[in-house]
């Protein structure tokens, strides 16, 4: 057929019109729209269920409720040994599950349904990209560039660890093995401690905490080691000396819940004493902007007012010792005028606050700094704590109480052979105190100890000292000198990257473990974290790891740790609670339960065991060993010409700081852009100070400190005390987490630990600094 131009045109036009009459173009348009619906993934549907567990991401120990959904994507996560056992034991349907939500458990006494941002983001730890999925062995020498890893089996890994430990022990040097834990709370930590004692090493050392100085102070003043708790809920007048009550101190959600109740009742007064306008200071009824480091002096000034005006609780004082000496100190050195000079708070304000504190019952003075990681010296603790004795709040409802111990079944006697005894008789590598000897860890001394070659093997369990010890980089360098380093962790962090062997431990959502007594909460409590699912099938319970190692090691170590697995140990321990008949589980008295199994079942259903504190007038010694709290300013608090400013670290509830976990992705949305902008950290400076340095909002600057320099930007904050630089803790990571690494700088690197000569403990929350415009 011949196709002329006209024919072609006809064909084209006719064809076009004809096509429009067919469904083809319309379907194409429709399909293209349907195609856009696929641009977002559609979550797999499935029936959901709810289980209760406990959060372990901070010392708060909140009850949580997880929402689980049947996982139709059918990955092999249920094939891990961990889970097979779990299924058999729990007789749960063996369907794969995925967790989609963490909410607070309304029945848990600690948080009553509330949750903090970190707790709510917990699933991002479980499913995080930074998880360690198998045991890892380092293939290149430490200290030489980026770590290179080889995946190995658990058997291989444990053989290496066992071999190393055995070798050191057989050489008669068990004390040259050191272990770093975040804290010694809970059975896993106790088990690890027991492992090393049976092995022959006294060197199980915890990361620095404010509780260290409290432990020393309390044992001196009251003959008890704590743990110290505050009955904030019933207190009518709370005098907080820098504790970030609403920003992560103690049990964060519990405190916030109490604060919510205070706001409703409108009969509680919160006075916040700290240099800068924190959230707690803003939310308090009164904020006293004290000069940094002068909090304790203010406490003594208030004590002076209470004593000289005779407002103290006479019956309470009758139970105390050393009051006269204390009174003499107050009268000679801490009259309001002098205290006003030291603290910058007008004498009249000191007096009125002191009077209100003394006459309002019950009242409590809270010692603290930030969330409780940074510590001060003993005299500070004693000064502030003494206020409680003056107003009769020691052991009183609405005052301070000692948390009762959870009545777990006692550990059997430790089996120690000659090697163990010999090792345990050696001094601890971190020292035993200052003028006063005490058993509290002094992790700040580890850098020197590691450098000296006193450590042949270092075990780090769920802690990140290479990031979070003061002068972190120095510690990291020292770690490179240790012949063998083992890290147990669920996520790759700075310390694990410095290790020879990394063992993947199950996250808190994947393991059965006790969470005992939320920090600072007046009642004792215990609930369980439960192995809800196993996202990393290879990850093991750290308790099981050490029990396996103990079995392999045999001898006194093996016989000291005879349990098959952690669950068996935990169940046996829980038997002690039943035997004690103490406390309640949920709404039931333990005394009313028929068997230990009933208690065990209850705990495994996510219920919480708790026990009210015993209130009763207590006393203390104001001047133990003849020491009145004499406040000596820390050297870096004194102004110098070279470093005219003071750098003070602060904590932010959305930036995980030295806890079991780093800042999770969801939380990065909560970090204000006045704190972090792209990769730059912003320090907070008073606009007046900034103006003097010709700095404006967002300017790049260098913080020069005696121990190093940090590149930052400046955020002008009217709430900052002039000449003070505020820097957040918890940023500047160099792990593999794409959401976190390389963002901001690590303030721990420049913080200067100054040793309190009395206790030998580090005082570290700031350092001298100079801010230089770049």
């Amino acid at each position, binding site marked *: 057929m011949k196709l002329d131009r006209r024919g072609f045109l006809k064909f084209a036009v006719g064809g076009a019109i004809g096509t429009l009459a067919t469904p083809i173009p319309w379907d194409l348009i429709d399909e293209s729209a349907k195609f*856009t*619906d696929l641009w977002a993934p*559609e979550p797999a549907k499935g029936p959901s269920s709810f289980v209760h567990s406990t959060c372990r991401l901070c010392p708060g120990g909140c009850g949580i409720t997880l929402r689980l959904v049947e996982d139709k994507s059918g990955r092999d996560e249920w094939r891990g040994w961990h889970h097979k056992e779990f299924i058999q034991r729990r007789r749960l349907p063996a369907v794969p599950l995925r967790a*989609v939500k963490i909410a607070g458990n309304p029945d848990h006494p600690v948080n009553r349904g*509330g949750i*903090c941002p970190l707790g709510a983001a917990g699933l991002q730890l479980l499913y995080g990209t930074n998880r360690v999925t198998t045991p890892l062995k380092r293939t290149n020498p430490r200290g030489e560039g980026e770590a290179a890893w080889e995946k190995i089996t658990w058997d291989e890994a444990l053989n290496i660890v066992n071999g190393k430990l055995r070798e050191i022990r057989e050489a008669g040097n068990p004390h040259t093995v050191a272990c770093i834990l975040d804290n010694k709370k809970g059975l896993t930590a106790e088990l690890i401690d027991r492992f090393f004692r049976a092995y022959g090493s006294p060197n199980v050392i915890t990361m620095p905490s404010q509780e260290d100085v409290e432990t020393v102070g309390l044992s001196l003043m009251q003959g008890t080691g704590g743990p110290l708790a505050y009955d904030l809920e019933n207190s009518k007048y709370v005098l907080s000396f820098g504790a970030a009550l609403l920003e992560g101190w103690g049990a964060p959600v519990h405190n916030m*819940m109490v604060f919510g109740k205070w*706001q409703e009742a409108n009969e509680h007064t919160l006075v916040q004493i700290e240099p800068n306008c924190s959230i707690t200071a803003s939310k308090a009824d009164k904020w006293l902007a004290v000069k940094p480091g002068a909090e304790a002096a203010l406490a003594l000034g208030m004590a002076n007012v209470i004593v000289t005006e005779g407002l103290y609780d006479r019956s309470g004082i009758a139970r105390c010792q050393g009051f006269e000496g204390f009174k003499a100190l107050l009268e000679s050195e801490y009259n309001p005028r002098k205290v006003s000079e030291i603290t910058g708070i007008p004498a009249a304000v000191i007096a009125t606050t002191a009077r209100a504190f003394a006459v309002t019952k019950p009242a409590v003075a809270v010692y603290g700094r930030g969330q409780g990681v940074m510590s001060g010296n003993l005299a500070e603790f004693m000064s502030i704590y003494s206020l409680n004795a003056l107003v009769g709040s020691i052991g009183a409802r609405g005052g301070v109480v000692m948390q009762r111990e959870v009545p777990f079944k006692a550990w059997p006697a430790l089996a120690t052979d000659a090697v163990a005894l010999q090792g345990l008789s050696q001094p601890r590598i971190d020292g035993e105190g200052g003028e006063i000897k005490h058993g509290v860890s002094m992790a700040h001394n580890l850098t020197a100890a590691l450098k000296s070659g006193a450590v042949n093997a270092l075990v780090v369990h769920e802690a990140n000292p290479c990031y979070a010890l003061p002068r972190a980089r120095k510690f990291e360098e020292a770690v490179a000198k240790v012949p063998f380093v083992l890290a147990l962790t669920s996520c790759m962090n700075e310390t694990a990257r410095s290790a020879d062997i990394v063992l993947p431990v199950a996250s808190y959502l994947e393991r059965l473990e006790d969470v005992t007594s939320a920090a600072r909460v007046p009642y004792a409590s215990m609930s369980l974290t439960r192995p809800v699912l196993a996202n990393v099938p290879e990850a093991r319970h750290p308790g099981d790891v050490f029990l396996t190692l103990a079995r392999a090691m045999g001898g006194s170590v093996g016989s000291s740790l005879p349990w098959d697995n952690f669950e068996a140990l935990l169940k046996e321990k829980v038997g002690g609670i039943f035997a004690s008949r103490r406390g309640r589980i949920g709404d039931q008295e333990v005394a009313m339960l028929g068997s230990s199994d009933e208690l065990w079942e209850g705990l495994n259903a996510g219920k919480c065991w708790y026990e009210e504190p015993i209130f009763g007038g207590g006393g203390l010694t104001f001047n133990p060993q003849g020491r009145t709290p004499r406040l000596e300013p820390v050297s870096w608090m004194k102004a110098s010409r070279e470093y005219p400013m003071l750098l003070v670290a602060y904590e932010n509830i959305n930036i995980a700081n030295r806890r079991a976990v780093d800042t999770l992705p969801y*939380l990065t*949305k909560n970090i204000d852009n006045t704190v972090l902008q792209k990769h730059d950290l912003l320090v907070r400076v008073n606009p007046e100070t900034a103006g003097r340095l010709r700095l404006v909002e967002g300017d790049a600057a260098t913080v020069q400190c005696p121990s190093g320099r940090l590149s930052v930007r400046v955020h002008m904050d009217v709430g900052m005390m002039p000449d003070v630089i505020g820097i957040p803790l918890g940023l500047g990571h160099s792990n593999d987490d794409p959401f976190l690494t390389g963002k901001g700088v690590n303030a721990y690197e420049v913080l200067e630990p100054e040793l309190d000569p009395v206790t030998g403990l580090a005082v570290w929350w700031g350092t001298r600094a100079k801010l230089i415009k770049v």
Partner: protein
Amino acid sequence: MSEHQEVASKEKYGMVIDLDKCTGCGACTVACLSENNHYVREDESDKLHSVTWMKVYKVTNGEPFPNTKVAFIPRPCMHCDHHTPCVSVCPVMATDYNPLTGIVSQIYTRCIGCRYCVGACPYHARYFNWWDPVWPEGMHKLLNPDMSPRMRGVAEKCSFCNHRLQKAKDKAYVEGRKELKDGEYVTACAEACPTRAITFGNMKDPESAIAKLIKSPGAFRLLEKLGTQPKVYYLSNESWIRELGDNALGRKKRGGLA
């Protein structure tokens, strides 16, 4: 341009946020992100590109040290009750005001991404998906099956966790009830709040906690002068915080973003 038709309904959901209780911890934001399947980008410090249906504004009274105070204003979608600004402007009816519940929701598969609603909302409660939603390997497991993630190029906003209402109603129906009990349907943010600053419920139920709270003397809404009639109320006894709730002539503007 008429008002929404008043339908004989026993439900109208709203929220009360007690700003004196709020400590700005951001648990509400995270609970919302988790409940509503938000993805997170590696850098979220550019807040004008960071989707947070529940955004917590940090504000200050503007006073110099040491009289400075900060407060927090959590800002979900206001679910405006009068001539909802974002609903009337949408050219393709992708935004819907439900006359039975008062809830304003977005139909993601309908939205063409013109962003007229983003411009019309004075509360900045509307967000646009500038990027493809991406979850790191394995992280998609935490997606809530009740909520569709949003594709690139569409607008989105707080829905008062609308899907939870459906679940609560299903449950009530199974139990043979026609009406929900107070507290049976709450948003993820209200559920999470550690200080219990957020109260959510049916404003038309006179017995509900929210119906009582909105009559409190310290109650106010954001930008009341515009006449949007938000269904989110705020409480505060602090006058400087209440003053930040609306523009007022002749007031020296002191407070603002911290």
